[in-house]
């Protein structure tokens, strides 16, 4: 059995993603949570690159790490939230939440573990479906109407945020 670089990277990135996702929900300090979530997004971007979905990898970093998380960080820093102001739930609710989540994971994995594993995605170099040329052509021919509608969604979200955030 040979171990390829892809496999090693897959395991490293998976461990990094899971560890930083766990740190997101266990950190007491909200700023730490934000930074761990950014780390999660970077490891998910790494997975996209392994799957040779380069466009989504870069867009994931630009949109999530570069824009959305900056917004979160801004809000947390301006509200001056830190360890002391962080609301705590009692131990039993935490435990119940963890057990519920664990059960969900168990059920989902049990139901999906026997999916037909014949079709592997071993050969990530096979298709260039994640490249910008192919995705761009699809996006601006077949999916051009949803694309335009999403721009209207953005505009309305922007106006909505300004209206909500304004002081009366």
């Amino acid at each position: 059995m040979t171990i390829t670089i892809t496999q090693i990277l897959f395991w490293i990135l998976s461990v990094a993603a899971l560890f930083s996702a766990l740190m997101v929900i266990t950190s007491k300090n909200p700023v730490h949570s934000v930074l761990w979530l950014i780390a999660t997004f970077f490891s998910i971007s790494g997975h996209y690159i392994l799957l040779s979905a380069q466009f989504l990898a870069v867009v994931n970093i630009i949109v999530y790490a570069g824009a959305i998380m900056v917004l979160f960080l801004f809000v947390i820093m301006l509200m001056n939230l830190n360890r002391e102001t962080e609301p705590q739930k009692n131990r039993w609710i935490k435990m119940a939440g963890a057990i519920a989540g664990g059960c969900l994971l168990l059920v989902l994995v049990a139901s999906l573990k026997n999916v037909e594993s014949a079709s592997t995605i071993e050969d990530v170099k096979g298709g260039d479906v994640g490249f910008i040329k192919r995705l761009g052509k699809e996006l601006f021919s077949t999916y051009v109407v949803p694309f335009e509608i999403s721009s209207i969604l953005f505009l309305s979200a922007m106006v909505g945020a300004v209206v909500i955030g304004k002081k009366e």
Partner: protein
Amino acid sequence: MHLLVIDWWLILEKSLLIFGIIGLSFFIAMYTTYAERKVAAWLQDRRGPNRAGPFGIFQPLADGGKLFFKEEIIPLASNKPLFILGPALAMITALLTSTVIPWATPFITKGGDVIAMQVADVDMGILLVFSIVSVGVYGIMIGGWASNNKFSLMAAIRGASQMVSYELPMGLALIAVLFMTGSLKMSEIVGNQIENGWHIIYQPLGFIIFFVCALAECNRTPFDLPEAENELNFGYHQEYSSMKLGFYLFAEYINMFISSAVMATLYFGGYDIPFVNEASWGLNSFWMTVISFSVLMAKISFFLFVFLWIRWTIPRFRYDQLMNLGWKKLIPLALLNMIITAAVILLLKK
């Protein structure tokens, strides 16, 4: 049984290139600090640093030595891990941007192997530069917040909102260039300019917008509000001392160097030599690589000089003026530029 199947030769070649570029970035950043003081002195009719070595050329080494031996202070109330992470992130993001820039024509060995003078010619090219620039905000924000000082925090928020705002017109100006090349690959952007002439001829407005945004992204005057030391009580690195402060300052100079390289590559033909057809000279590929590399370095030095020149020419903007310029002037201008470029390209195609 092969445990690992790796092309060691490729790894050696790429790591040599990476270390070369990092070394070069540090060297240029060091001497940009020297050039900054010399240019300032020249514009103000002074002599500038001239004690360390002939014409003071060892001044950067003396400055670096001073920074290294200063006492390292980490404020008691600061968030220690993040306090250290801030300058590290600033430096990493500054250095990462250089990965996709083509530095010279490919070098062909005697065996016929082609060695590209570029760390990675990825399909995403310029978009990758953008993603790294957008992550560069964190170095400032984390450093400012972790200092646990309200002035640092305010400066960090000023700096971050400035960088986020100026990324938009920068991207819009860039889209017009991408319309013309039809590719995001840096090597193809340079190739297109070698064939059809530099983009500055077709995109003068786009270049001006891009340049203004590059000034703002590097926190240079007239947009250096994040570190306005006189009127705004210094910047996000107020609590930093020793080499951590050095990292922030150094990262800024490396950003200047890399953004000059990006501008030269996008608008000024990259490593292309103007007005001549260098392919007809019949030089061997080693000398071609050397010459094209020095041409690119000459263009970069010119941009670095313009950066320094502007610093001593234009006074600092007020914060509301900065935001007005970014959102109300540059974005509409960049959109207009984009629409005109698209229309002209469509008309010419018919």
